[in-house]
């Protein structure tokens, strides 16, 4: 999978690139709007991660030009601008998702994976992790053929793990994704929810999906 990252902030693009490469993506980085626009037309990329505030042509204009030329590849907007108008404008122009800084890498990765999956095959919205089946459209979860009832939060948690499979996720990242509100990261909030989820999906010692990373968070191991 090849990703085009258009971001002028070298340090930000650096850690995104490193993180994505760690997940075995191929990442090309552009540091200006003009260069980014040129590169965006290349069919080599599966997804574009686009910063809004750029030197030269700004991110929203790049997005508009792409969509005007019927290039429908997924675009994830990345911005430090905390303006809901920007977000609305971006989504209206055809952006597929939106992420405001500061974000965690786990969140970015989850969204990139979700976008890639969506564009790769619109039909196949069922993911299988070992003996666990998840329907991303209907939010149905089955393990070993048995349907499992999950609450909205439990489902969000599970989906986040699947999108970040084989990566250790820290509590803050998990909390930010699933809950809309802040809470003290010191509380055992996440642990309680993970335990409930584990119980529901029948995660037990000899066939464990979600593993605890002591002192840090959790990881879903698919291998």
């Amino acid at each position, binding site marked *: 999978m090849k990703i085009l990252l258009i971001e002028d902030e070298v340090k*930000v693009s650096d850690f995104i690139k*490193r993180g994505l490469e760690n997940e075995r993506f191929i990442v090309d980085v552009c540091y200006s709007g003009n260069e980014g626009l040129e590169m965006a037309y290349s069919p080599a990329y599966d997804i574009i991660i686009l910063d809004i505030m750029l030197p030269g042509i700004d991110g929203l204009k790049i997005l508009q030009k792409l969509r005007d030329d019927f290039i429908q590849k997924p675009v994830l907007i990345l911005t430090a601008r905390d303006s809901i108008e920007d977000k609305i404008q971006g989504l209206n122009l055809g952006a597929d998702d939106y992420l405001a800084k500061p974000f965690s890498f786990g969140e970015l990765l989850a969204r990139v994976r979700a976008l890639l999956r969506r564009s790769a095959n619109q039909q196949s919205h069922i993911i299988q992790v070992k003996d666990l089946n998840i329907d991303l459209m209907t939010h149905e979860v089955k393990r070993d053929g048995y349907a499992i009832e999950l609450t909205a939060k439990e489902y969000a948690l599970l989906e986040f793990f699947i999108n970040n499979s084989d990566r250790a996720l820290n509590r803050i990242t998990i909390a930010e994704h699933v809950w809309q*509100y802040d809470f003290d990261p010191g*509380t055992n909030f996440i642990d309680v929810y993970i335990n409930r989820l584990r119980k529901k999906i029948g995660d037990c010692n000899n066939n464990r999906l979600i593993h605890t990373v002591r002192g840090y968070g959790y990881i879903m191991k698919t291998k």
Partner: protein
Amino acid sequence: MMIFNNLKTRIALWYTALFTLVLSVSLLASYKIVSYQLKGDIISELATKAEIINNAFYKEKSEEHIDEENHEKSHGEHEEKSRKKQNKDFQKVFDLEMTRLVTEYTDNNYLLFVTKNGNIQYITSRYKDIAHNNLFSKNIGDTEINDNPFTYQVLKRDEYKVVIAYKLSSIKDIQKRLVNIFYIIFPASLILSIFSGLFITQRTMNVINQITNTAKSITSTNLSERIRSSKGNDEISKLIDTLNKMINRLERSFKQTRQFSHDTAHEIRTPLTIIRGEIEYIIENESGNKETINKLENILEEVHYMSSISERLLMIHNMDTNNIRYHFEDINLSELLNDIYQDAGILSADKDITICSDIEPDINYKGNKELLTRMLWNLIENSIKYNKSGGSTFIHLQKDNDIISINIKDTGIGIPDEDIDRVFDRFYRVDKSRARKLGGSGLGLSICKWIVQLHKGNITVNSKEGFGSEFTIKLY
């Protein structure tokens, strides 16, 4: 004395006091002047009367004188006779004249009497028994007869002494009447002056009150408002102008501060993203020293805390500039609150706090889900954070006559009375040392209030230090 703290009353009182003083002085002066003039009139009247009598004397005397000359020229019995006769004639005429005068003066307030060699010869009949010679010692003066004041003049001619006096009781009557009039005028004008004083001050105060009310209503959120200026170039419009200029300066510096905090919050987001990304990268990829990783995790928590502050600051900027239209949708408030209640249960169990809820099912409300969730969570989280071990939190939701009321009550540490009015202020923290430890930035409640107001509701707090707090939200 509350009433004297009121400027209006004070001005009216001063006005009345001054008016009373002026009124008293002018009434007293007119009383004195009238009395003085009346007496002056009487004295000159007496002088005229005395002149008439004097003229009568003079006539008689000059006749007598001629008689005496005649008497010197002629001799004998005849002369003696004629002289006697003439004397008799004079006596007759004098008697007649005096009787006439005495009668004439009987009916009014005059007293007239004539003495010859100290014996009273004629007297106004009314005063026969009371007038004594020795009452009239001076040529002109005042005296008292039978408790009645008199002013008199005395005329002396040879063996005759004529006293003419006037009873002053008529002046007294006029004075009494004047005083009676004053008795009516004085309180009437006093009342009138109080009312007119109040009226005038009221008019002035109305303008001032208007200024006060506008100034009072101007807070950090509506600094663009101005006091409506009155026409003209008087003191009041100068005052309004000065106040408006002051608000101008405040607004400018407020805007600068706001812009600064917004810019700062905005600027730190990129470095925070980088710090966060780098730390996460290190933790995930280096299987290094456990202690180092622990420390990095602590840093990560602090970065998270900083991010949430910067996010709140940006939110506050949005609150102030009011330039964002939030998406309102139909929300099942009961479900939303139940969700939060479930999460809060985890938090409270950790701290040995009992949490109870009484949530009326299926209450729907049109609002912004994200903001309402944030607000409710913030209040409930506070009720757990600031609770005592073994304490409890109650969540209550009900709908009555289209009014939704949400009640969050705890048995926690409460809020001191002196702080209660300021808990919704930005950056206000009751217990500064404790709040930081619990992750409070002093922005939570001000954001809660803004969220409630955005939904056209209101939020109130009731608290007793040491016993707990109760937040009530009403949505319409």
